[in-house]
């Protein structure tokens, strides 16, 4: 049995997820995820005011609340056929981007990097330096990174009043009408974020220099270009990540889905579902490992065969009935051939797909992207050369920070203080679809309004994509898949399992219970 356990620090945000892992000869042979908490938000909204989602859905998740708001307002825009002034699209994009850039250092230091200070890596040459910087609480970069993460949401608060849990994005625009003071302060706060952390600690160079990187070879050359870059937190992460072998495990399903986000200020003034793809600045799409496919929300189906809801055939969210919860079990008593999670299993064109920052940067490399969309070949190259892994997933997420910083500043300069911020819409019945990219991946809301109240409201969160259970055909979800096949060096401290699950930034407090594949003895349970 286990004598000591050093996965730290643990927990890490929201909800309860249990994972059962079977280990044989040091290799994970089977993995099941179990979401262990139910609140029934969709059911609460049924029969309520059509705008309920603006208040209720941000409270699904206190971490991605702004992203839920982006979806909820967009779903109503399409259902009510609103008109959106450019200022409104800019201020919504700024809200989404500040929430996401906040999450980048908070996630890296508080959730992910502390695992690199695990004793598993103690014999690696870079371990001392990694532990010095990334160890929980005492690491030299830990407090800097965590404190810096609070700055971008100050900008969110300037336009939304507070973060988390504002409802400032509404059908037809935004509530606020900022003044010169707000714009100036926002620029100043973002500059401080850049000076205190992004350039000084993270990159070790200017944002402009970093954004010249176009290929994996460029990236490696950048690391070695000078001491400042080599010794920056990013430089250290790349060198240590490769040295620790983080590029060797946690591949997952190899298929990626992004709904895209940041609707262009001049290209979505008449919101429609059909017009959405072309109006995005960060593009949408499905990448099957070889080819890119145009995103179509109608290809999304939810399966409940292994979820604690009454059986219904796999269906598109608009056609799904409200879920009927069934009795659940704790992890020990669960039969994994039957129902075993509160999470549903979404599929795209029938496939389990990974969502998240890596999926986004893969879409950014799509050669078909338009001139107003991000065109960045870097992760097209990295996914070919390295493939998906814990390492590439982290790199993909961190890669977004410099570009988001540039976008936020650019969008702030485009706000026209004399123009409109809101155009009052007419309330009508109908169907709507709103989507975005939360920090941790693709998020969408589907609404149906009938007789002036909500008839159906369905939410598929990024963690549902990544952490969902088996589908009707018995195919595993992305994290289940990414866990299968990994080598566990010390089954009493399976840090590899934690790192895989954390690389997806699963928005759940995960309890992993490791079981021996042969005798079923419980080795150890621990929190992710």
């Amino acid at each position, binding site marked *: 049995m286990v004598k000591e*356990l050093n996965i*730290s620090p*643990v*927990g*890490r*945000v929201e*909800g*309860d997820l249990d994972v059962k892992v079977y280990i044989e000869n040091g290799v994970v042979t089977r993995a099941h995820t179990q979401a262990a*908490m*139910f*609140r029934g938000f969709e*059911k*609460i909204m049924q029969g*309520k*005011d*059509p*705008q309920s989602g*603006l*208040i*209720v859905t941000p*409270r699904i*998740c*206190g*971490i991605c*609340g702004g992203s839920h708001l982006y979806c909820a307002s967009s779903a109503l825009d399409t259902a009510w056929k609103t008109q959106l002034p450019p200022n409104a699209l800019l201020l919504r994009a700024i809200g989404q981007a500040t929430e996401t850039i906040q999450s980048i250092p908070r996630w890296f230091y*508080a959730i992910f990097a502390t695992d690199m200070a695990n004793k598993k890596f103690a014999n690696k040459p870079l371990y001392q330096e990694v532990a010095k910087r990334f160890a*929980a609480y005492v690491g030299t970069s830990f407090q800097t990174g965590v404190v810096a993460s*609070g700055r971008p*949401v100050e900008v969110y*608060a*300037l336009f*939304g*009043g*507070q*973060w*988390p849990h504002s*409802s400032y994005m*509404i059908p037809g*625009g*935004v*509530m606020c*009408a*900022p*003044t010169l003071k707000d714009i100036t302060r926002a620029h100043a706060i973002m500059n401080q974020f850049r000076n205190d952390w992004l350039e000084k600690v993270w990159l070790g160079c200017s944002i402009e220099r970093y954004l010249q990187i176009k290929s994996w070879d460029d990236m490696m050359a950048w690391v070695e270009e000078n001491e400042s870059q080599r010794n920056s937190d990013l430089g250290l992460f790349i060198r240590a990540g490769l040295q620790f072998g983080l590029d060797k495990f946690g591949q997952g399903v190899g298929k990626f889905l992004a709904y895209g986000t940041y609707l262009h200020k001049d290209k979505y003034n008449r919101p429609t579902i059909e017009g959405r793809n072309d109006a995005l600045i960060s593009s949408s799409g499905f990448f099957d490992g070889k080819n890119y496919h145009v995103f179509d929300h109608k290809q999304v189906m939810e399966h409940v065969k292994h979820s604690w809801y009454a059986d219904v055939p796999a269906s598109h969210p608009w056609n799904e009935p409200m879920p009927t*919860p069934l009795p*659940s079990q*704790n*992890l020990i008593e669960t039969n994994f051939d039957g129902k075993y999670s*509160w999470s549903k299993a979404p599929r795209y064109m029938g496939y389990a797909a990974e969502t998240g920052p890596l999926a986004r940067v893969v879409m950014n490399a799509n050669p078909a992207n338009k001139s107003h969309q991000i065109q960045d070949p870097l992760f097209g190259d990295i996914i070919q050369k390295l493939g998906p892994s814990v390492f590439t997933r982290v790199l993909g997420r961190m890669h977004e920070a410099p570009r988001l910083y540039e976008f936020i500043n650019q969008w702030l300069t485009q706000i026209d203080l004399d123009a409109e*911020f*809101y*155009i*009052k819409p007419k309330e009508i019945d109908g169907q709507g679809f709103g989507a975005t990219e939360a920090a941790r991946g693709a998020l969408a809301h589907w609404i149906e309004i009938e007789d*002036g*109240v909500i008839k159906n409201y369905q939410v598929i969160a990024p963690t549902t994509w990544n952490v969902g259970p088996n589908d009707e055909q018995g195919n595993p979800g992305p994290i289940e898949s990414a866990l299968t096949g990994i080598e566990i060096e010390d089954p009493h401290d399976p840090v590899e399992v934690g790192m895989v699950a954390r690389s997806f930034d699963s928005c759940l407090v995960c*309890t*992993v*219970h490791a079981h021996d594949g042969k005798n079923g003895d419980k080795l150890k349970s*621990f*929190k992710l």
Partner: protein
Amino acid sequence: MANVLWLQGGACSGNTMSFLNAEEPTVIELVTDFGINILWHPSVGLEIGEQVTDLMNDLIKGKKQLDIFVFEGSVVQGPNNTGTMNYFCDRPMKDWVKELAAVAAYTVAIGDCATWGGIPAVPPNPSESTGMQFHKQKLGGFLGANYKSRGGLPVINIPGCPAHPDWITQILVAISTGRIKDVLIDEYHRPKTFFTDFVQTGCPNVNNFAQKIDGHFGKRGGCLFYEVGCRGPMTRASCNRILWNRQASKTRVNHPCLGCTEPGFPHHDLVRGSVFKSLKYLGFLPQDVPTGEGRLKYYIRAGWEKILPTNKALKETSK
């Protein structure tokens, strides 16, 4: 020095995210400078899995002292009062809550879900959620009307969706530094120091409220009480005295107050016409009137103010 255990039930982690934004003191300073010993917390705790189970058992058996038990999220009782919709460490969370609350010196409920059930408790309340000691306005909740912690206080309620980080950190510091006697609580068990003034106190639109000048979304100036459902005059909280994220508050950015520090949020249970609209009688008389004022008296006074000539200088706005 105070041992703190923080658990989450039917939660969105919003109060934790808010807590991590704390500035004076920061979460890290709470630990290093203010004697807060965080035994475990879902986002910042170092212990894990069975260590957490062992820790909770040690606290329950009295082997370790639990000074402050913080609970975030609703107490999930469903289905059929089993609590199995929310397992934690192999048991229904509600069973842990009952046993831990029995040994805690002080029990603190953070956020609306923990205080009065919050959004999960909106009908039809699919998870049978309730608050620690209230269900909406009604005293009782999960622990019952008579519950008192070892320190002699009922559950200290720090409401808000989310609660402001300062409300949380200052109560933790008050307990750990022996100032708990300065924490007076009101009828809803809220610390009076934060929940005596109204959100309207410090709102830049109080002049417009007094002059009955309507505000609207996307416009500068004007009061949001009359048309878009602002609850600032009915909501006790310090949002306009202790700003959010050091910058703003809802009403300072033209966002109606949702009344999230009062039991019953979301008010009117999200019925049609209640979201970002002021419910009215006869199409013009607001159903909700400022706290402490009779309806009739308010209508007479407000009607009088409405017909008096407005002070145009106070109405001016600029970009």
